[in-house]
């Protein structure tokens, strides 16, 4: 049974209250270094209320830091889609390519961003392209795999229409294969975006570039623990919003 509107509003608030209580309790008892919710707010309010101030490279409002991170993620994510989508189509269309590349993909897929980043630094010598490389190389797999699955699960009925009409390979691709697999492709895009956002924190922590993740690591080193919590909450909020937005796009693709 779907919960009533009142309950739908009330229950998450109750859950939030419970978490805040637990957080306070832990900060008072077990981990006294952990700032309480109140202390976190007091030490972070400037970052939240003036989100775009800039005092120095690493001391900026949380909005500005989030913006840096989002731009970086956007670059890596777009690169992932640009490489991943055609790769997925090729894998879905060609048995040969699938046989040759699938084992490699299954091998590369579980590698952590923490492992890719140093390699990126070796190759690119600079932290910014290394971070973007890491985001792309970690985020593209869901796009590759979902696209390939989407292509392979196209209904034979649709393909038969193209065969009867003797469509050229290009027309078959544009008119039938791509539109038929779009719902899967966009599921891949949504999952890839989730991973891209996961990777940004690791990439910024290791490279020390300004952004939410870089800020988090710097504040850990400067012992301002409340700002770690601020960063964590920001990362969660942005990840949630991104996932919802892509979910909307994905749902649109499914109904057509």
């Amino acid at each position, binding site marked *: 049974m779907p919960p009533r509107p009142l309950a739908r509003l009330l229950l998450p608030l109750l859950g939030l209250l419970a978490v805040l209580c637990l957080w306070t309790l832990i900060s008072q008892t077990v981990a006294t270094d952990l700032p309480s919710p109140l202390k976190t707010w007091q030490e972070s309010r400037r970052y939240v209320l003036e989100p775009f101030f800039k005092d120095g490279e690493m001391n900026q409002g949380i909005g500005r830091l989030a913006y840096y991170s989002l731009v970086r993620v956007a670059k890596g994510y777009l690169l992932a889609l640009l490489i991943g989508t055609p790769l997925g189509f090729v894998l879905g269309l060609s048995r040969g390519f699938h046989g040759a590349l699938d084992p490699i993909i299954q091998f590369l897929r579980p590698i952590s961003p923490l492992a890719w980043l140093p390699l990126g630094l070796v190759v690119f010598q600079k932290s910014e392209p290394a971070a973007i490389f890491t985001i792309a190389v970690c985020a593209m797999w869901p796009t590759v795999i979902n696209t390939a699955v989407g292509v392979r699960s196209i209904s034979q*009925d*649709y393909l038969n*229409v193209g*065969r*009867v009409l*003797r*469509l050229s390979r290009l027309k078959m691709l544009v*008119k039938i294969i791509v*539109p038929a697999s779009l719902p899967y492709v966009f599921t891949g895009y949504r999952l890839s975006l989730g991973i891209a956002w996961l990777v940004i924190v690791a990439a910024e922590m290791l490279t020390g570039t300004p952004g939410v993740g870089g800020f988090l690591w710097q504040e850990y080193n400067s012992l301002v623990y409340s700002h770690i919590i601020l960063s964590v909450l920001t990362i969660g909020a942005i990840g949630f919003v991104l996932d919802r937005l892509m979910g909307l796009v994905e749902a649109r693709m499914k109904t057509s």
Partner: protein
Amino acid sequence: MPYLEARGLEKSFRGSDGPVRVLGGVDLSLEEGEFVAIVGYSGSGKTTLVSLLGGLAPPDVGTMVLDGAPITGPGPERGIVFQQYSLLPWMSVYDNVALAVDAVNPRLSRLERRRLTEEFIALVNLTPAQWKRPRELSGGMRQRVAVARGLAMQPKLLLMDEPFSALDALTRATLQDELLRIWGARRCTVVLITNDVDEAIILADRIYPLTPGPGAVLGPVIEVALPRPRVRQHLSLSPGYQKARHAVVEFLRSCRRARA
């Protein structure tokens, strides 16, 4: 030589316990402009026969020749109206039909192709719905689009695979009447596959019963001695109708009895 000639078509599929022989030597010949119906029980191999004639699957044994050219693969000269409509859901009615028009008339100008597309849509009375997507249409309207697309291929042979079986009885009757009207206006050679004896009699010149599989073959031809144009209301009581109906039903029943 007949317009369409199929000889000794055999096809087996791999089943869970060994190969299943679906078609066991089907012979079929058709003159140009004829409307032939193939009637059989569900699961007797009717759709397999359509995919062979359509070139979507090769026969294990046998030859097919259409208008002097052997059938080796799919092509628009053998238009297919699929059982499940198979409309592309991301395209409007117009684009679904235009896909066929554009594929078979690459040399025509854009304007002429548009005129043709609109003509085929008008032929099945769907002009008001031409910008709708298939999911916004009723089953009957979807099947009309599929018929329009089949005709838009301007095929030498139109294959219809149980085109109206998914529709309710009233809609089915309406579409049969429309098909009669369309076929009267532009005679093309049609092979209609159906499990509905009445549908076959109303529409076809000749009926071939397909024996129940495995190893299905076509039974003796049954001529439908009904004058055209046909009007449904006058048909079912006429002696020619009753005679054809009796012949088809008796043959299929006797096949079943022989097997039991």
